[in-house]
């Protein structure tokens, strides 16, 4: 995998960095892939994360981090091409297939990914997971959305408030 101009000063073999999850698992990954994270990019550019050091990520557990890195590794080549204006339709279709499959996951994993993508500032992943949640909401009634997103059943007071609000926002429910 080529890793040009993505912060690795090395020539030859792709530079590797180590990331450490909140539960102390070490992940070794190409600098180009880890640099998809805006948060990590500067540290990596400064030469951090190499050797025995590793970059600690106290907010991301190992299960989530391994999922995040799966995304980064898959998307790193296209990102290195600067949005890949010359990517073929086949490449794009393959990434799309990967993305669709990638978010086909348990809701708690999805929520963890959303937080991790946000903390690590991985733009593509942020949009991917946000879009997934939006698709879960789309076309549903408020009660269905509450159930889908894991809200508890509303108390009578909350229910009354919801009803009042729906009256006020009648124009949005016509």
């Amino acid at each position: 995998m080529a890793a040009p101009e993505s912060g690795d000063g090395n020539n030859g073999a792709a530079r590797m960095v180590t990331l450490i999850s909140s539960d102390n698992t070490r992940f070794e990954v190409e600098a180009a892939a880890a640099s998809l994270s805006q948060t990590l990019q500067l540290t990596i550019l400064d030469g951090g994360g190499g050797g025995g050091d590793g970059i600690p990520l106290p907010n991301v557990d190992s299960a989530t981090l391994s999922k995040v890195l799966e995304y980064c590794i898959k998307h790193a080549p296209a990102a290195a091409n600067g949005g890949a204006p010359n990517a073929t339709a086949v490449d794009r279709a393959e990434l799309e297939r990967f993305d669709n499959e990638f978010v086909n996951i348990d809701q708690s994993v999805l929520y963890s990914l959303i937080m991790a993508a946000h903390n690590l500032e991985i733009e593509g992943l942020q949009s991917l997971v946000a879009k997934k949640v939006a698709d879960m909401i789309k076309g549903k009634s408020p009660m269905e959305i509450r159930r889908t997103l894991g809200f508890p059943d509303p108390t009578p007071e909350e229910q009354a408030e919801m009803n009042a609000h729906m009256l006020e926002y009648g124009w949005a429910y016509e």
Partner: protein
Amino acid sequence: MPLEDQGKKGVPPACSSGRSIDVMPDVILEHILGFLPAEDAVRTSVLAPRWRHLWKSATGLRIGCRDRGEAGTGPVKEYRKFLHRLFLLRGGWSLETCEIRARIGEFFSHLRGATAELLYLASYPVQGQGTQDDMMLLPPMLQNMPSLVEAFIRLVRSTTCKCYSCQLSDSSYNADSSDTNSVLLNGLSQDKSLTLISTYYSLIVFKGDLRWCPIFSNLKTLLLNEHWCVPDDFDELACILEHSPVLEKLTLQLFSEGPKHNVEMKGGFSLMGPSTIIISEHLDIVEIKCGVVDERVSVSARHGEIQAAE
């Protein structure tokens, strides 16, 4: 607001921060809401007190994007009422994405002052209402979108008129009468990526624009449909190419109505023509999407790599 049951077992502590959507910061929820059609986004306001105003700061605005109720159907009056309320209440015009598939363009002016990186505009006029009004409202909006990176614009003459070439003569839009020099394209000339799906009708507008020769100084990818490549009249195409100094990829999509739309084209298809135009040195890829590639068709581009998609 009580949260989801916190006591689930077997989940590492660091994961708990992601377990309920309600513990996520507003920016994340606003991002999520930005992917919803406007109608769905507004309706989330009922979910809980915290969600009451979140939709107003959603990072995306998508109008006319619901799956059911294709553009051009449904009662216009109700929709107009909805949009009126929406624009009245919605703040936060710093958008990442703005997607409008509208039957009426009158509210384009509401977007004045909005900023967006990605713009998708498709105008489907209601019968009896001309697109020209939409056209006049578009430019002020576009000119105020300096952060626009990608634009997709599709203007359709009329939902009842499927034949693009008909009624051309009764078009009352006259590019010369506009008081701004370049009505549409000037507003777009800073984009990096531009898709122009034109019908004959709107091509007139673009033609008028092109006479003022906006420079697409940042334009890297360009997608045009068949109406830009009418044989023997490549002036518009040539003009855009000449004024796109850093263009890297040109796609000619010869089926504006979807992959099953057949376009018959007779005549020469030569971009370069006898009077050679100066095109971007960066132009690496010319992609032509069409149903059947007739072997009599030959396309030449200087650094040409031709890809024919199915």
